């Protein structure tokens, strides 16, 4: 049996899954100050009398990292960076103590300027003087040659409690994002460590011995221990839980829009043949652009609790939430009140909803029921516009080869899957607004927790070979070897697949049915003069985000 928990901003959804489906479900109020307690209440809520020894797997999403960034409560981090030609690295300053040292590598990983080790030592001393115990070490082009970061790491030994290097977190080029990601990892590490220890101890105390996984922004999971090596990857795992929850109900070979309608916001994402579309570079959270792999998701300020106001004769929905709906004791009318008036939402004080909608209707020159219908129609149309804009954005992504340009896949949603509180009520209206087949996901209230429970372990690896300079490297994996002049694309692909498989197993993947695919494979002949001087090969492989097989559930 599997327990899935989606720890959200307001509520935590929890399910217990058996081979035949959902055995128990619960919703707990999230205590942001004590997430461990929230997790335990959730587990207790679904476990009941069941023997904890029968639990084979626990997966949880957590808001810990996202909140730390948004609330700016990361622990202080000292950053030491080496850049070389290009933008002034000081423009990327982040953290409590930012230091630029001399040392530079070029785009092929060749050393342009030696690392100034004295300057590194000085920077470390200044960071320590401030009482900072965590550092991030980043050099430009370290994903082509990690030697400068490794040298700094060696020098940092014994001086700091937490040390993160840029080259291990992603093989993707982007120096400013590498700096920000490294800073975020180092800054959230302590809080994540405490959280993971507390969760482990509490589970042990309850007799749960199953491996515990954490959901990542890309919709995959990794073990609680592996998460400590890159805690930043757990940002935005909430939206990814929703998308994973939609996958079992998504038709094959179709493009599907997933809409998760909450109280304050609606999250939207796209599935192509049951596989979520990813962000090209990585997650952006609280204005911080990172290299953490993430699902492409867009969040807009429209939901069941959005404030309804007017500007002249124009109806405004959101983006603020002033509290719950009038019918649930809130201060202002909301779409939920419109549903209550129309008899689509039961429970709560229907009279209060009626009164609020009546006033709004009068101001807009409409009957109470008419304005309620108008509110829901407008809400659906606004969500449609945002969703279509997101799809347009995905289709407008730049491409770099003729093949992609001429044969490029164009996303064209053919169906809607709706989840979240008002899913059942809004699914038909959304379908009508979008002109698409539309339905609410079964178990729409806890589908996100099911998504978390069934998400498989994912990871990616980049392999680079330069036969002119005679090396093949996968810096993320600490892999470096000599490449013979005959090293070719097949060799690079085989190596990338092997490394990604090993990495997945290390992160907690099940060896059975591990699906590895090549994301990118480029090979360039390097010409010097009119001679071929070697090959430049770049391969990126991944375990695709998706769901584990679990008996009859999917």
């Amino acid at each position, binding site marked *: 049996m599997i327990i899935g928990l989606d720890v959200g901003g307001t509520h935590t959804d929890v399910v217990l899954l058996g081979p035949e489906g959902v055995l128990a479900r619960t919703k707990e109020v999230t205590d942001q100050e004590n997430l461990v307690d929230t997790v335990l209440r959730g587990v207790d809520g679904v476990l009941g009398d069941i023997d904890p020894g029968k639990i084979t797997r626990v997966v949880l999403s957590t808001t810990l990292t996202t909140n730390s960034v948004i609330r700016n409560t990361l622990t202080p981090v000292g950053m030491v960076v080496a*850049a*070389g*030609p*290009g*933008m*002034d*690295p000081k*423009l*990327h300053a982040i953290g409590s103590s930012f230091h630029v040292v001399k040392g*530079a590598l*070029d*785009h*092929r990983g060749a050393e*342009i*300027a030696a690392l100034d080790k004295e300057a590194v030592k000085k920077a470390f001393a200044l960071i320590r003087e401030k009482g900072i115990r965590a550092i991030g070490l980043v050099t*430009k*082009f370290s994903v082509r040659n990690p030697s400068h970061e490794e040298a700094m790491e060696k020098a940092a030994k014994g001086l700091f409690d937490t040390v993160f290097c840029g080259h291990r977190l992603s093989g993707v*080029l*982007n*120096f*400013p*994002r590498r700096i920000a990601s490294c800073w975020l990892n180092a800054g959230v590490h302590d809080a994540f460590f405490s959280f993971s220890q507390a969760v482990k101890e509490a589970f042990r105390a309850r007799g749960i011995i199953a491996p515990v996984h954490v959901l990542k922004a890309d919709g995959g999971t990794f073990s609680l221990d592996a998460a400590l090596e890159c805690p930043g990857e757990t940002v935005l795992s909430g939206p990814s839980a929703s998308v994973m929850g939609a996958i079992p109900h998504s038709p094959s070979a179709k493009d599907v829009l997933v809409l998760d309608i909450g109280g304050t916001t609606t999250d939207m994402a796209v599935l192509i043949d049951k596989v979520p579309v990813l962000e090209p*570079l990585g997650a952006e959270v609280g*204005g911080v*652009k990172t290299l953490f792999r993430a699902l492409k998701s867009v969040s807009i300020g429209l939901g069941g609790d959005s404030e309804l106001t007017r500007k002249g004769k124009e109806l405004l929905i959101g983006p603020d939430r002033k509290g719950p709906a009038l019918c649930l004791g809130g201060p202002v009318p909301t779409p939920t009140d419109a549903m209550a008036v129309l008899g689509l939402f039961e429970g709560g004080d229907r009279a209060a909803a009626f009164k609020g909608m009546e006033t709004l209707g009068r101001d807009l020159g409409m009957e109470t029921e008419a304005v309620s219908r108008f509110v829901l129609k407008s809400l659906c149309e606004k969500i449609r516009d945002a969703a279509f804009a997101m799809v347009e954005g995905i289709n*407008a*992504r*730049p*491409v*770099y*080869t*003729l*093949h992609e*340009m*001429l044969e490029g896949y164009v996303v064209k949603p053919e169906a809607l899957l709706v989840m979240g509180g008002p899913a059942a009520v809004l699914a038909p209206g959304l379908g009508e607004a979008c002109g698409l087949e539309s339905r609410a996901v079964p178990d729409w209230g806890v589908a996100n927790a099911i998504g978390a429970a069934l998400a498989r372990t994912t990871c990616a690896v980049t392999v680079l070979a330069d036969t002119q300079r005679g090396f093949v490297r996968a810096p993320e994996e600490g892999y470096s070897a000599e490449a013979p002049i005959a090293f070719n694309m097949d060799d690079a692909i085989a190596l990338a697949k092997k490394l990604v498989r090993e990495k997945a197993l290390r992160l907690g993947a099940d060896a059975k049915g591990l699906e590895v695919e090549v994301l990118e494979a*480029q090979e*360039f*002949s*390097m*010409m010097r*003069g*009119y*001679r*071929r001087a070697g090959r*430049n090969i770049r391969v990126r492989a991944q375990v695709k985000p998706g769901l584990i097989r679990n008996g009859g559930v999917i």
Partner: protein
Amino acid sequence: MLKAKSRIGLVFFPAFDWAIDPSHPEREERLLYTQDQIFEEGLMDIEGIQEFKPDLVTDQDIQRAHFCVPDESTVTTSSHYVSAGGAKTMARELMEGHIEKGFALVRPPGHHAMRVVHGGRGFCNINIEAIMVEYLRSQWGVKRIAIVDTDCHHGDGTQDIYWHDPDVLFISLHQDGRTLYPGSGFMEELGGPNAAGYTVNIPLPPHTSEEGYLYTVENAVMPILDDFKPDLIINSAGQDNHYTDPITNMNFTAQGYAKLTEILNPHIAVLEGGYSIEAALPYVNAGIILAMAGLDYSHVLEPDYNPAVLKESKDTLQYIHKLCDRVMDQWSRRGPELSQKVFGKKEFHERSRSIMYDTDGIYEGQKEILRSCSDCAGSFRIESKSDRDWRIIGVHIPLNACPACKAQGEEWYENASGADKAYLQDRSRDLYLKK
């Protein structure tokens, strides 16, 4: 959070799966290290910098600038449609007000492609700037455009297309044609009878470096632009003046290119040549993008940058100063007076020339007749014959053609005979006919 001073748009299309042939300078690897550098710098993440996917140009877009023999798809590849399309994308985003400046980093280049196209010249088949300029003029009604070609090779194709048009000012800075392909671009090439002086060639001596180049920009190019008052400035941004370029002899630098971009302040820059793919392009392009965005580029330095070693000799600088004086003097005499002096006063002007297509090994002979006109750019008729046994007649009626030139052009097309194909490029009606 980093923010660009102006909203700029980029099209980056390295065409990683296209080359003329595997060992050609214009090959897949060309923008590889540029991609590495601009991606690693995170330039596309800066607020105010937006990356766009290129459009594909249509045959109609190409027909506004060229007579393609026998047709567009025969003399081009898909890559050309994307490359010109990238330039068009920047033009459209600019005109729609989404961006204030644009840079199309595309390949293959285009500035050696002339009005008539039988094949490839100097790695160019179709002229991507001219196609963009004609799109801007016909679809957006832009009146006056200045093209400043800073590629190290003379922009002979662009010169040819705007030779007769006083509304499109063409300025080319390049290594002296006595020392480099295509062997043209002398000061005496100053435009046709109806546009005398509106083609400005500035042949710079080999080994010109930052000081001489920027002196020319400040003392010739900018004053000319101030006089001409274009609605838009386009930069044919070739990057082969770099001191590491394998097929030229200049000493320009990434810092120089960034400063040049800052001074020139073009609305749209379109990448042309540049074959030092590893030592120059990554730095030059990063410098240009930062300069366009109004961000600090002072740290964009080649690993072996040493301005003292690259500096021009005194003699070279003196030569450049004099050259600029001569250019300004010629510019001050532009128009009918200069035309009469150079071409005399005639109702029709005729010229014959031969053109070599070095990339495809084609020889072409041309005979051109132009109607002398003070009311419009003048209609002209080209008879062109290639050693691939194509004989065509191309008739051009300019944008804003006067009634007399219009009538003349139509008559030429009607009476065209003795050719395999005849084309009418009627820009006044945005029409292209074939027979």
